[in-house]
């Protein structure tokens, strides 16, 4: 049995990698050359050999892992909580004190846990009647029933160990007592005390089902089938994918409050909710950053209520709005209640897809055919193809205004006095009819303009 905590029944040690890692750390701490400095420590009048101080432990961890003292203290505390290191002073409390407090490394114990526990409790009982705490007494009585057949052996062992202890030096006696106490505090914590051994409920059943999954022919057939499918996948070069992260993070960085902060202040830090008021879902004057986001992708625009409202406005002037309505209806179907599916599908068909429908949407014949076929057995994804077609239509339509070639532009500065309201993918300056007169922005403190500077209709300042 290892020095540290014994894993709870049903959970093999292999499934607790953190214990293995801690053991490795503790082993290297005890290395004669590279480990923690071990010396005899003085505890009042007793001298304890092969002990380390709390501060030495912290120092060693700081250097070994190149971490801060705070983190080293935390890591050391965790080792003590799991019983790998035990305190020689005040052994009831498993904490790491970063001072001259002496500690020692736990050693391996042999034997079955219940027997060892019985011997430990018996010793306590024999040595001084009445020293057992209530929960210990309960435990002792339970063990007595459980291993009654070996009870005389337990008592014999207990008496033998007590006798041997009497002959030891005081220092050794103290060491062994502390060692034992720590071991049992970790493996049998008193009721109410948190146990470092506790795992969540999900794992128990996991172990069972893992055993269950014998590698049958079906299992391998599934693997083969999966591999074959996977081989046919198109993959993208790593360099391309990784560059995408860089550009995504770069683009979104200024919009990430935890990375770049937010103006006027982060509500959680300043206790002022002005930021939320300014960025409410429907607000008369969206901030500059918010408008910028609409330019990131069509979806961003659609998902922002203010953005969508502007888009509806735009659609209303340039194109009819049935495309957007159809798209919204499809969203409702995808995310709506299961019970509503048949009704919704029917409603969408009647309104948008049936020949001669009031708000007929223009879908290519192949997609329409497939969709109508699918409508025979309606489910929430039955309109996906049609929805995608309309989405692409809307996106393209909004990018190429009627009879106007699109010229590539960097994101326009929103200081244009003509009120070029929409971000770049919607094209260069709009006709004035699309001017968004509601745009404004919060003032940035550092750029204080003169008192007579007025925001004209459609004009935006940075």
């Amino acid at each position, binding site marked *: 049995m290892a020095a540290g905590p014994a894993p709870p029944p049903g959970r093999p040690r292999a*499934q607790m*990698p*953190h214990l293995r*890692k*801690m053991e490795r*750390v503790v082993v290297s701490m005890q290395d004669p050359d590279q480990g923690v400095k071990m010396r005899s420590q003085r505890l009042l009048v007793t001298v304890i050999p092969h002990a380390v101080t709390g501060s030495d432990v912290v120092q060693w961890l700081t250097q070994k892992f190149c*971490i801060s003292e*705070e*983190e*080293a203290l*935390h*890591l050391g505390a*965790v080792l003590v909580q799991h019983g790998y290191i035990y305190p020689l002073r005040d052994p009831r409390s498993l904490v790491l004190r970063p001072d001259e407090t002496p500690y020692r490394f736990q050693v391996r114990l042999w034997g079955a846990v219940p027997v060892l526990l019985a011997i430990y409790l018996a010793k306590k009982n024999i040595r001084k009647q009445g020293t057992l705490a209530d929960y210990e007494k309960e435990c002792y009585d339970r063990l007595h029933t459980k291993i009654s057949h070996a009870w005389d052996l337990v008592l014999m062992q207990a008496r033998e160990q007590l006798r041997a202890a009497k002959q030891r030096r005081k220092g050794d006696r103290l060491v062994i007592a502390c060692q034992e106490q720590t071991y049992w505090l970790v493996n049998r914590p008193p009721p109410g005390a*948190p146990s470092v051994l506790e795992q*969540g*409920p*999900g*794992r128990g*059943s*996991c172990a069972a*089902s893992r055993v269950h999954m014998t*590698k*049958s*022919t079906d299992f*391998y057939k599934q693997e*083969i089938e999966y*591999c074959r499918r*996977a*081989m046919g*996948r198109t*993959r*993208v*070069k*790593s*360099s*391309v*994918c*990784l*560059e*995408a*992260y*860089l550009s*995504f*993070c770069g*683009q*979104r*960085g200024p*919009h*990430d*409050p*935890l*990375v770049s902060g*937010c103006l006027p202040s*982060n*509500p*959680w830090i300043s206790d002022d*909710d002005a930021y*939320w008021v300014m*960025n409410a879902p429907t607000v008369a004057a969206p901030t500059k950053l918010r408008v910028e986001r609409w330019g990131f992708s069509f979806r961003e625009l659609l998902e922002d209520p203010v953005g969508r409202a502007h888009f509806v406005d735009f659609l209303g002037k340039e194109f009819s709005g049935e495309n957007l309505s159809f798209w919204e209806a499809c969203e409702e179907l995808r995310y*709506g209640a299961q019970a509503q599916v048949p009704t919704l599908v029917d409603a969408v068909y009647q309104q948008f897809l049936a020949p001669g429908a009031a708000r007929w949407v223009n879908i290519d014949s192949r997609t329409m055919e497939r969709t109508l076929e699918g409508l025979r057995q309606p489910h929430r994804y039955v309109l996906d193809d049609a929805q995608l077609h309309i989405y692409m239509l809307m996106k393209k339509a909004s990018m190429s205004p009627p009879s106007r070639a699109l010229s590539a532009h960097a994101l326009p500065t929103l200081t244009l006095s003509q009120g070029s309201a929409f971000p770049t993918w919607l094209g260069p300056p709009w006709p004035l009819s699309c001017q968004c007169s509601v745009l404004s922005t919060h003032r940035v403190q550092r750029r204080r303009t003169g008192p007579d500077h007025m925001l004209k209709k459609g004009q935006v300042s940075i």
Partner: protein
Amino acid sequence: MATEALHENETLASLKSEAENLKGKLEEERAKLHDVELHQVAERVEALGQFVMKTRRTLKGHGNKVLCMDWCKDKRRIVSSSQDGKVIVWDSFTTNKEHAVTMPCTWVMACAYAPSGCAIACGGLDNKCSVYPLTFDKNENMAAKKKSVAMHTNYLSACSFTNSDMQGCDKKAMVWDMRSGQCVQAFETHESDINSVRYYPSGDAFASGSDDATCRLYDLRADREVAIYSKESIIFGASSVDFSLSGRLLFAGYNDYTINVWDVLKGSRVSILFGHENRVSTLRVSPDGTAFCSGSWDHTLRVWA
């Protein structure tokens, strides 16, 4: 009969070797397109400045381990569930409790807020997902209004149940097509059980947190693991992960009570946060990215910014 058994064994053996073969070929294919590492590409990215993140709110009120939490779209309300069967809705900005429901089972392992903000869903070992409409009428018995909804047609797909058949049982992370019910991609590079997975904001990748004390980033288009976030001094498993809004930061809660903040691009650890007094069991960034919330076995939730 004996010959049948023998035949079965041979088939099993040949199937096994065919599977191994194909797996090997698949790995070769994947490796062909791997021309650069993330940290190399990220060398020209500016390093992040010093991070000072602190607990800004502590939510106390649960009587036992907090197991799960979710944010409301209004960016300040939170729903949390705990081992004692209680589900609480908080206005975390003011730290007021607004609703409390007692579930019939303990270990309420998942809870989620409806996008409308008008209902919460929660479930646990009863294998059911129950939906509670939120009402401000104090006389209404919320529990009486609950509806049980089956899992896969659940609108509140944000409700992620710790399905031990999928996540915990395996070191595999799997991507499923919800329509066909098929596994589209699988990644098996973790050395221990995976506890949590979360999509990168662009949707092209996802991160995972595992008992092997590492978090990893998997790219769906490149079809491979592209980054490992680990440190020798981090020994305990990561129980929950989430990205900041831009995907630059990865927050991970660990079983040693700490939260580590990682620079996703450079692969380095930006910060370590202390505060919880027991393992961190759940972690989510707020919808507008101004803060993140962590729930712990120490019965509390903390909002950090």
